[in-house]
Every structure is written in C-alpha cells, then in structure tokens.
C-alpha cells in the first residue's frame, strides 16, 4: 500500500487516549495482506490445489499404454475420492494388477468395483486379478479415503507391463 505515513490524519494522538499509529498501520497492513492471501486461497481452491479440481485430477498411462490411472493428486484427510484403473491385455483372460508402495499406508480402500477374481498380499502392497473383456479391457474403480497426512508415492503395475507411478498428497 502506498501510504504517506506523514499525513496529519495518521499521526499518533495523545488525547483522549495515547495512540501508537505506527503499530495500528501495521495492523491495517496485515489486514490488507491477509485479504490478498484469502483471495489467493480461494483461487487455489477453485483450481483444485486442495483436491478435486483442474490441478488435482490426473490421468496417467504407463509407457506402453497398457495401464491407465485416473486419480486425484491432492486429497484431504477423512474424505473420499475415486481412482479408476484401466488395463489392456489379452481378451478374456485374467490379468494381474499390483498396488504397491505407500498407497495402502496413506489410504484405506472403501470400495473396490468390480470384485477382483482373487487377491492376495504382496511384499509391498497387494495383488489383484481381474478378468478382461472381449476387447482385452478391464477397469477397476476404487474409492480411497485419506487416513494419514503427507506425501505418498506408490506404483500400480500390471503383469509384464511398465508401472505407473503416482504421487499423492493428503492435506490434514
């Protein structure tokens, strides 16, 4: 704020009370800067920095294009978001999918649709087996609930393909 603090209006008075205008001007400056910060937060929230928005929604594919993941990069503790995993493999055959890394440490899986053929734990996470359709496509819908706070790196791998790496952040 361009303000001439020498203006007679902004000089400290001693009657009827002792003022400290230098301090009061700082308070007003704080209010003004705070207002800009609030607007910035609003714009960031609209953009999706705090989950669900343009900056948060990601769609990644593995190098060979066989694994695709749609997910939210930013989550909030206690709230749920969906993740969609698409796999391309041989038609009408079971396909292995591994959720590894810190995914299961930061999130709990609320729903898993459709039900996998079978599942088991693995060294780093869990393995699921899905059935592809006549076109060789399989899709898995997961609802994730953020349980922890912080940065979580995970990878999603399908049998014999390159993995997709995800970085997700959970806000408190």
């Amino acid at each position: 704020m361009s303000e001439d603090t020498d203006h007679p209006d902004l000089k400290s008075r001693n009657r009827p009370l002792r003022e400290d205008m230098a301090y009061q001007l700082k308070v007003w400056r704080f209010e003004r800067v705070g207002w800009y910060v609030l607007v910035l937060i609003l714009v960031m929230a609209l953009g999706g920095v705090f989950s669900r928005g343009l900056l948060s929604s990601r769609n990644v594919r593995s190098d060979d294009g066989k694994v695709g993941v749609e997910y939210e990069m930013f989550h909030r503790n206690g709230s749920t978001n969906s993740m969609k995993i698409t796999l391309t493999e041989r038609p009408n055959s079971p396909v292995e999918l591994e959720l590894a890394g810190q995914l299961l440490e930061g999130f709990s899986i609320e729903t898993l649709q459709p039900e996998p053929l079978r599942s088991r734990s693995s060294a780093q996470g869990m393995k699921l087996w899905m059935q592809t359709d006549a076109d060789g496509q399989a899709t898995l819908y997961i609802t994730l609930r953020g349980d922890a706070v912080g940065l979580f790196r995970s990878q999603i791998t399908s049998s014999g393909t390159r993995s997709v790496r995800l970085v997700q952040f959970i806000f408190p």
Partner: protein
Amino acid sequence: MDSVLRAGAMYLALMVLFKIAGRRSLAELTTFDFVLLMMIGEATQQALLGDDFSITNGILVIVTLIAIDVGLSLLKQRSGWVSRLIDGEPTIIVENGKLLHRRLRHARLIEADVMEAARSSQGIERLEEIKFAIIERNGKISIIAKEN
C-alpha cells in the same frame, strides 16, 4: 492426542482469520452476520470433532479450547505486547467534529457508520457535535459528545 491438536489448530486458524477480517467485522451483529456466524460454527464443528463423536472427544476439545483461552488471557495480563497483539488498540476516527478520512479508509468505515453509532449511543445528529469517535478494541464505535 489429535483432539488437542485439532482444537489448537482450529483456534489458531480462526484467530488469524478474524484478525484478517478486522475488529469491525462482527462487532455490530446484523441478522445476516448472525447467520454467517452460525455457518462458520457448522463448518468448524466437523473439523473439530472429525469422525469421533464420543463424549471423551467432545470434552477433550472443549477442555483444549477453554485452556487456550484462559492461557491467553493470563498471558495478556502479564505482557502488554501479547495483549496488544491479540486485542489491538483503540483508534480515534473523529477529532473535534472532523473525520480522519485516512483512518476511516484503512478501517473500512464510512461516515454513516460513525453517525449511526453517534445517534444510537448519544442521540447526536450532526458530525460537528462529536468531540471524539473511537473504534474500541472490540470493534464498537464509542462517541464522546462536545460539551455545550
């Protein structure tokens, strides 16, 4: 543990937000301000309690909030610096019947706000009859009339 942290974080966040809003924001509570306050309360409640609706959690949150409040008032009593930081200081906005326009602008006030306070507290009709108008620490405008 997280109940205390939640309550502490919310206390701090609300305090900073209301500092940014300025002391005038909720000083004269209009009907809409009251509704706004209730909405803020609703939004705060969820963050304070999370998904734990037990009596223990509720009491822990309340204990934390009151403890912080009492602690701060004790600190304010001992240190003038803390008191000034949290409560602010009164500011004169009318001096001998003249508005201090620069100050009004900073405080986001207009003449009508001053005259409203003058009418309701002192029955004053004109600006010239005001000796001093002061925004108090709680955001209310107090008026000292000129002696005739």
